């Protein structure tokens, strides 16, 4: 009887950690994002590195804030976003996730 219990425990431990030995899958979360002018650019340029959750959970922000974020992605994180796209993304973010303030 004792042997059996030990065996069961051993089995349950290997089962618990088996998933890190094989590949794990992080679920995809369908964050609700607003449709709007420039959305397809946001989709193409932002999603490479992060989810929409990362955008919508920053809170409503000023144009200056969103411009700063886009600049940070380009300058610090080296995202290949050209000037035209950067402006489109900034406008989309401010129109949909702005606080109405320019500064």
């Amino acid at each position, binding site marked *: 009887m004792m042997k059996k219990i030990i065996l069961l425990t051993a089995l349950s431990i290997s089962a618990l950690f088996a998933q890190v030995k*094989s590949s794990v899958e992080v679920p995809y979360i369908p964050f609700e994002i607003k449709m709007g002018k420039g*959305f397809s650019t946001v989709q193409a340029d932002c999603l490479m590195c992060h989810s929409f*959750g990362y955008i*919508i*959970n920053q809170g409503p922000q000023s144009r200056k804030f969103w411009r700063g974020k886009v600049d940070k992605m380009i300058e610090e994180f080296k995202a290949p976003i050209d000037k035209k796209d950067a402006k489109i993304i900034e406008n989309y973010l401010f129109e949909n996730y702005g606080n109405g303030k320019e500064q």
Partner: protein
Amino acid sequence: MKRRDFFKTSIAASAAVLSSTSLAAGETHQPNETRKVSKYAFPEKRPLITYSDRPPLLETPLSVFTEEFTPNDQFFVRWHLPDIPTHIDPDTYTIHINGMVQRELKISLKDLKNDFEQVEVNAVVQCGGNSRSAFTPIPGGIQWGSGAMGCARWKGVRLKDILDKAGLIEGAKWIGFNGREKAAYYKTPNFVRELELDELDDHVIVAYEMNGEDLPYLNGYPLRLVLPGYYSDSWVKMLSNITVTDKYKSLFFMDKAYRVPDNECECETPEKLAKKTKPITIMNVKSVIGYPENGAKIYHNSEVVVRGVAWDGGYGIHKVMISLDDGKTWDEAQLKEDLGRYAYRSFRFGFKPKKYGKLHIMAKAVNSLGEEQPFSKDIGWNRGGYKYNGIQVVNVEVV
């Protein structure tokens, strides 16, 4: 790109921030604790408050913080870069020690567990931006409630023992820590942390176990740095490299992120940002109430037990005070067992509500240096929304 159909669905994510604020600009308030857990569970986790799936950002519900240890399957998650290896082979995983050392080392998990003294430490790990949603105007960054933290019993090997084995060369001053998370673009800076050798003591360990189990994948399997007393930005996950240098190397995540104004109040205004900043490093004194929760109804004249946890950067909790009259008078809560100066100290406070209607329950921790939590409104703003430690107010109704 695999994620083609994301915009077709209209399932509300659990953590969208609503744009409403009637608060005066600049006044710090209670963090937003109204968010519910997602219906999606991440690997080895129960459903948690979910801000992002890539990189994964998960918050622990406040109700979990009534005990000293936070269960692994409810422990918060915060990564910085989108590409986390989805497969780790524990039989071949090694950690490299290089730079200004006499012997470069490649240590396997097995060697780490066999060739070194195994040690344990109870320690809180908390995101520097925990409770960021308390600040107005809203600082950039994830608008966390107060659950971007947890306390665990970590098991591993002293960093000092590993460095001793490698042998430091004279002049060695800085240590860089790098994990396996990667960016989408080659040119994006890695999430590397640097610490000065002077900052490290015997409590700093390279851990492979958390609360008696292997580290969960999302908490840095198979190895992470454990830096008791420090905010979690330096607790590098999936640790792969330790590099010793004589000079500080300029890095984005060190020089631009996780910094507060270098003045006494660590505060500034959006109009006049502080010129000089410093890393967030050591945690300040803080407590949260896990029970009751905001909006709860409690019975008149019933036995209510307020439960929560308190901690600081390693000086130790001296007492936790509870107020039921908006801070006019305070009574001492009962502290449970001391599990070490870096761990949560859980507290209990029993009382019988005598008046019907709204009741505000507050908790204030005081550490062994006499430092205590301020009221929210007395906490100055900083651009990163870091280090909030205001007195929590739980609003309940006596019925």
